[in-house]
C-alpha cells in the first residue's frame, strides 16, 4: 500500500467517525432480522426434535451466542462503536463466568450435603 492510499483510507474512516449517529443500510437490518428468525427457529427445533445430551446443549449455546452477538453488534450498533466503549461494556460481564464457576462448585457441594444428610429422593 502506498503512503497516499493509506492516507486516503484513513481519511475515509476519519470522515466516517466524525459523523454523529449511526446510519446504516436498511438491507443490513433486514438481513439480521431474517437471521434472528432462522436462529430462533433452529433453537426451537432443538427442542422439537428432542435432541439430548451434549449435542442439545452445544446447539442451544451456539444459537444463543449467535443471536446475542447479532443483536449487540448490529441492532445495538456496537460493531461501529470505538473499542473504548465496546470494551467498557462487553468485558465486565466476563466476571459473571467466574461467579458461575464458583456457584457450580457451591451447588455441587449443596447437592452432596443434601444427599448425605437427607438421603436419596
Amino acid at each position: 500500500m502506498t503512503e497516499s492510499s493509506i492516507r486516503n483510507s484513513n481519511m475515509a474512516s476519519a470522515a466516517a467517525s466524525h459523523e454523529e449517529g449511526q446510519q446504516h443500510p436498511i438491507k443490513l437490518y433486514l438481513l439480521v432480522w431474517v437471521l434472528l428468525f432462522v436462529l430462533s427457529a433452529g433453537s426451537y427445533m432443538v427442542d422439537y426434535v428432542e435432541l439430548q445430551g451434549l449435542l442439545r446443549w452445544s446447539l442451544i449455546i451456539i444459537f444463543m451466542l449467535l443471536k446475542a452477538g447479532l443483536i449487540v453488534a448490529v441492532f445495538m450498533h456496537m460493531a461501529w462503536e470505538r473499542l473504548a466503549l465496546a470494551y467498557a461494556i462487553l468485558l465486565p460481564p466476563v466476571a459473571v463466568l467466574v461467579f458461575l464457576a464458583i456457584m457450580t462448585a457451591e451447588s455441587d457441594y449443596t447437592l452432596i450435603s443434601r444427599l448425605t444428610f437427607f438421603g436419596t429422593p
Partner: protein
Amino acid sequence: MADARVRHGPQGGRPEGLEGFVSDWGSDQRTFKKVSWGKAMMWIFLLSDTFVFSIFLVSYMSARSSTVDAWPNASEVFALHIGGADLPLILIAIMTFVLISSSGTMAMAVNCAYRKQRRNTALLMIATAALGATFVGMQAFEWSKLISEGVRPWGNPWGAAQFGASFFMITGFHGTHVSIGVIFLLIVAARVWKGDFDSGRRSWLCREKGDYEAVEIMGLYWHFVDLVWVFIFAFFYLW
C-alpha cells in the same frame, strides 16, 4: 513518519483499534468519543442490568443443580394443546418471534429517525410497542395458565419446588422490563409524532432541532430486553 502524520494530521483522525482504546482511556479527556452522555449512560445502565439478570440466571442454575428432586420438563410444562396435538414450547416460541419482530421494527425506527422521517419513526415505534404489549399479554396468559395448574413460588405438581420461584422471578422481572419499555416507547413515539424533535425547542429528550438520538437510546434499551430474552429462552426454557 508517514504513519504519524496520518494519525495526527489535519484530518483529525484518531488511532483505531487497540491503540485507540488505550489513547481514549489513557489521558485526561472525554473517554467515549462521538457517544453522547445519554447514550453512554444508557449503556452503563444496561451493563448494570446485565448483572441483575446474570445473577437471576446464576441463582436459577444453583437451585436447579443443587436440588435432589427432578426438575420439571419445560418442554412439557409449556406445551399447548392446539388442533388435537401437543406442541412443545409453542407459546414460548411465538413469544420469541414476537419479541424478535419488535426488535426488527425498533431497528427500522432508529434508521428512519436518523433519516429524519418523522412519521415513519413514530409509526415503527408504535408497532414496536404493540408487539411488546402482545408479548406481555402472552406472558400474562402463560402465568395464569401455570398458576391455574398449581405452580407456586414454593412448589408445583411436577417436581423440584424451586421451579416456580425461578420462573416467576426471572420472567416477572423480564416482563416488567418489557412493560416499562412499552410505556417509554409510547412516550417517545408521541413526542416524535408531535414533531417535538424538529421544533428546535430543547427538552430532556432533544438537544437541538433534528436531534433524534433519543430514539436510538430507546432502541438500545429495547434491544437489550430482546437480548435478555435470548438468554432466558436458552437457559430456562430449552435447557
